[in-house]
């Protein structure tokens, strides 16, 4: 039995120690906002925040979490930065198919929490692990700048 702090709430989950957090979120807790993409931490679709840092939940075993707080796409909009990012995403019409976008928003929010006024280079390096097959990168960059100055 593991006790996880997810979006400010404590959740008890009875799962094997090596189950990745993504499975806990989607299959055990029914929180399907976080997406499965590649399963090998290469695409970023499953990004969540662990202790404020962007991590890939598909390769994060539940036993490695401890008491570090988890924030997912379902609650990222409750924080001031997350809300700014989501508004900028809507203003700039970033999304095309949308599958990667919850991960993109989680990575963008983590970036802005750490670097409130990022340069293009900061954005490119922080977002490089989040892949978008629709090619929305230009709008993602634009929206991050917009959120930074909002």
């Amino acid at each position, binding site marked *: 039995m593991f006790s996880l702090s997810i979006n400010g709430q404590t959740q008890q989950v009875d799962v094997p120690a090596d189950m990745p957090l993504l499975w806990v979120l989607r299959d055990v807790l029914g929180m399907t906002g976080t997406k499965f993409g590649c399963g*090998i931490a290469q695409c*970023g679709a499953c990004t969540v925040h662990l202790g404020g840092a962007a*991590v890939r939940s598909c*390769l994060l075993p539940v036993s*490695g979490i401890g008491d570090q707080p988890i924030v997912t796409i379902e609650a990222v909009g409750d924080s001031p930065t997350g809300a700014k990012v989501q508004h900028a995403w809507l203003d700039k019409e970033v999304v095309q198919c949308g599958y990667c976008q919850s991960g993109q928003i989680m990575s963008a929010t983590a970036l802005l929490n750490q670097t409130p006024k990022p340069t293009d280079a900061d954005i490119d*390096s922080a977002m*490089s692990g989040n892949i978008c097959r629709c090619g929305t990168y230009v709008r993602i960059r634009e929206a991050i700048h917009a959120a930074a100055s909002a």
Partner: protein
Amino acid sequence: MLRGLLLASTLLLAIPLAARADDSIVGKGEYLVRAADCVSCHTVPGGHLFAGGRAFVLPGMGTLYSSNITPDPKTGIGGYNDDDWVRMLWTGVARGGKHLYPAMPYASYTKLSRDDALAIKAYLFTLKPIEYTPPANAMKFPFNQRWGMVAWNLINVSDKRFEPDTTKSAAWNRGAYLVEALGHCGECHTPRNFMQALKSDKAYAGAKQQGWLAYNISGDKNAGIGGWTDAQLAEYLSTGKAPGRGPASGPMAEAVEYSLRYLTKDDVAAMVTYLRDRPAQPDGPPAVPATVAAAAAPDPMGAHLFNQACAGCHLPTGAGRQSPWAALGGAHTAGDVTGTNLVQVLAHGTQIETDQGLMFMHSFTGGYTDRELSFIANYTIGQMSGRQGQVTPQQIGAARGPDDHKPTDPPPQVVGMR
């Protein structure tokens, strides 16, 4: 009082059971088989455990295949009696008088006690017999003349059991037995002479093995492990990574996965005690200091490619995104300007099974050219150690497997457009 009694009776119940499990010859043998890491060499990746057949390419000499050490009477070790078995481990002479090649580390196992040798046999005899004959060795003349090993053994194998040094602590002596006899660490980490025997005056100075550099693990502060703390060494041995020292990869990751992580805390601490006390050898690439000034003007192509290919798991800083096994800071591999192991990792990937699941990096030769990977390697060395990497595209090309998909560099004008 009642609680104390209850506790005491629980302990009384628990201790004999636990002790029986540990003290049985098979239980002891299993631990020793792990400490000696038999499985690593005697298994083909993905094949039956202990059934042998793993190839060892000895440059200029030929290829050896490990033997089947399951108790199958025809193709394995089922026909060994105790004396045959002990003679094989101590002298390298197999049943029927056949001389083994010293790829089997009998020069180390000769230090094993008879009891331990027989416990190993007892455990191996509990395995499921697998009928499998590994491929025949393909050694060139004169190395295919096994009788040549008679002279080699006379010169290079002491045929002496481990003798404790009474001037040292019990932990030191236990560590010595684990390092020198069971763990056979020197078989990779000690350079060899022209006869392919270990150079005793260069013990643990580091050596190249199967394309990988087994680093200097002598007490030298600069090139060896003299700068590591006891806690770093113990964590590295039992988990395959240590904060500020980077992860184990390639063959060392295997040694941790199959062997070292199963050792008790006390045994790991004993190994640390003994390793600490190895005379300093100055050879090999210097260790990466704790604080590094990264290259002031990093190569933009290297930075660009690192961010694309590596930062997803390692972060742009190399600090590791979420796995301590992805933290590159202080890694010896990132401080070796020749990039020997870095090229291996990029070309072949690396993996290690841990208590937090499988940590792995895939090969990058499928999606990146030799030139691109040389940029990535030199950028990594520059950022993580502040040194100027010297990895060439030719090195990457040579490390590629023969069946590797080989991407081609874009035409120069496209590169120029960046």
